[in-house]
């Protein structure tokens, strides 16, 4: 049967390739059959612990292999998973848990104290499962291993249909509050099939994933690999680039998903000693690579098909540039992914001609269901299409299209910064800065950076004399996710203002 729920990919691959290794992370290895059974156990125990169809479960972990068991376990239990960046700090974590009305959370044991601090404010959060050898099971905490071994390995009875939600992915918006993008099973299944179609994935593919699973790009690497019966090498991060590159040779890796920051690091390395002959393709998304970088990649990896891609969490992936067009259209981010369409619109809804600049509008099964409990933001992003009842997605990005139907990114309509491939809301950083005693005014902008894409830069006006830049940076590091922490902070006497008194950021650039 064609999979119509995300977890069907796992059950189907486990039937076809029971003893094949699907996931390798450091010393740990799982076959399809093992992952299938372990996720059944996790699902059964979630149900026994009170999880109802549609309940949300938050995953607050780094790139550990247990995430695969947990994600598929939550889905098999009929739940909705939420992936949260593991460097998220207390206030934002509490916000997401509250906003999503999460039923449970899975976190590393060293976050126990932080969880104890926020759990009393979250009446809907029933318990936390701690993934760590040192943890113990005492309510409201369960040790992951204990929780898992209590569940039956039989597949739980299916409750969901493909219109039920599979996941919420929180994304930064210009308002500063993160919003949960709702993906139903049909959205996720469709996107997986569309992307694996143009990447021409086969069960022989071995994917090396150093992108966080909390980022949809990293998450979909896992889901896609399971869908085509491949193998994924999961890395905790891109901290030791040479070591990761050597794994391409060691495991005969065929696919490498990267973001511009990773490619910048890779291209500065001496890679002569590494055998890349197994590598079939590389993908880039999150931000465009410069023409020089693309040329360097082509020189360094001449036999690799390089896919330049564009997307937003609200549709997952939107555009991709077929590798054969890289030569003649290096500045384009490509065409709509298979089975979807896109066009450029002006402010009053007219489709624009090639060459004219307007907002990119997207139509297809990958258009997600909206933002969790945020009707205003949903109506802004997802608006009625021509067919009554259909929703199409307004990207918020300015594009133009050429005569051949290829799209070119021009600019964002909002002021979101893209740093290290992650979206940073200046407003969110400013809000946190304003909570620092001594900061009177703050303005955050993105500035071009050869490695990060854009670097976060903060300008602050102080009302206390004895604060220095390091105090502010330390505070940022303790109160924001890593990718949001400004690369530089400038203390100024005053900020440029418009005649109406609003901070004029254009004068800061």
């Amino acid at each position, binding site marked *: 049967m064609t999979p119509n729920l995300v977890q069907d990919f796992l059950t189907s691959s486990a039937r076809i390739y029971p003893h094949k290794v699907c996931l390798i992370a450091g010393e740990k290895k799982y076959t399809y059959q093992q992952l299938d059974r372990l996720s059944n156990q996790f699902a059964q125990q979630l149900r026994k612990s009170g999880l109802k169809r549609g309940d949300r479960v938050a995953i607050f972990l780094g790139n550990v292999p247990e995430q695969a068991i947990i994600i598929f376990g939550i889905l098999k239990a009929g739940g909705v998973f939420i992936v949260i960046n593991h460097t998220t700090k207390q206030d934002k974590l509490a916000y997401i848990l509250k906003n999503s009305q999460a039923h449970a959370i899975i976190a590393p044991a060293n976050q126990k104290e932080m969880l104890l601090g926020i759990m009393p404010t979250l009446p809907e959060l029933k318990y936390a499962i701690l993934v760590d050898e040192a943890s113990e099971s005492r309510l409201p905490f369960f040790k992951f291993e204990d929780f898992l071994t209590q569940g039956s390995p039989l597949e739980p009875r299916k409750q969901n249909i493909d219109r039920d939600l599979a996941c919420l992915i929180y994304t930064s918006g210009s308002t500063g509050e993160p919003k949960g993008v709702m993906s139903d099973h049909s959205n996720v299944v469709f996107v997986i099939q569309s992307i694996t179609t143009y990447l021409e994935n086969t069960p022989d593919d071995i994917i090396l994933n150093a992108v966080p699973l909390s980022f949809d790009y990293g998450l979909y690497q896992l889901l896609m690999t399971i869908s085509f019966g491949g193998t994924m090498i999961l890395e905790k*991060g891109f901290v030791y680039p040479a070591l990761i590159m050597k794994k391409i040779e060691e495991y005969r890796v065929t696919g490498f998903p990267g973001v511009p920051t990773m490619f910048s690091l890779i291209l500065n390395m001496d890679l002569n000693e590494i055998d890349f002959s197994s590598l079939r393709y590389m993908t880039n998304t999150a931000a465009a690579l410069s023409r020089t970088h693309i040329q360097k990649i082509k020189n360094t990896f001449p036999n690799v098909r390089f896919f330049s891609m564009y997307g937003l969490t609200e549709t997952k992936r939107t555009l991709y540039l077929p590798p054969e067009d890289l030569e003649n259209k290096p500045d384009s981010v490509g065409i709509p992914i298979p089975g979807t369409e896109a066009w450029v619109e002006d402010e009053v809804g007219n489709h624009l001609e090639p060459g004219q600049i307007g907002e990119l509008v997207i139509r297809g099964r990958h258009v997600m269901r909206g933002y969790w409990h945020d009707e205003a933001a949903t109506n802004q992003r997802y608006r009625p299409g021509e067919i009554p009842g259909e929703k199409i997605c307004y990207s918020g990005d300015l594009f133009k299209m050429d005569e051949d139907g290829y799209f070119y990114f021009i600019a964002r309509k909002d002021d979101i910064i893209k740093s290290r491939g992650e979206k940073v809301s200046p407003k969110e950083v400013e809000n946190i800065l304003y909570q620092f005693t001594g900061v009177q005014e703050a303005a955050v902008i993105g500035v071009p950076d050869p490695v990060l894409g854009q670097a976060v830069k903060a300008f602050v006006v102080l009302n206390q004399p004895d604060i220095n830049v*390091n*105090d502010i940076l330390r505070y940022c590091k303790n109160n924001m996710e890593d990718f949001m922490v400004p690369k530089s902070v400038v203390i100024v006497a005053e900020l440029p203002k418009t005649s109406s008194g609003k901070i004029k950021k254009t004068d800061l650039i």
Partner: protein
Amino acid sequence: MEIQEKIKKFIADNILFSENGYPYAVSDSFLEKGVVDSMNIMEIVAFVEDEFSISVDDLEIVPANFDSVKNVTEFVERKTLN
């Protein structure tokens, strides 16, 4: 000891922005403790190259050389001996 202190101070001042020096044990893993991210490792590499006049090969940027203050110190000591 001087090398170790310099490395601790660099990380404390430039990566952790710490008020009270390097707060971890010298053998604590950077990755396990969440001391650094990928960008920070590159900063540490640039620092030791500059400070101790050594050159670090890309293939030397591995946990055995760069995952703790102790490892970095020993790496620098080996390099400066050569």
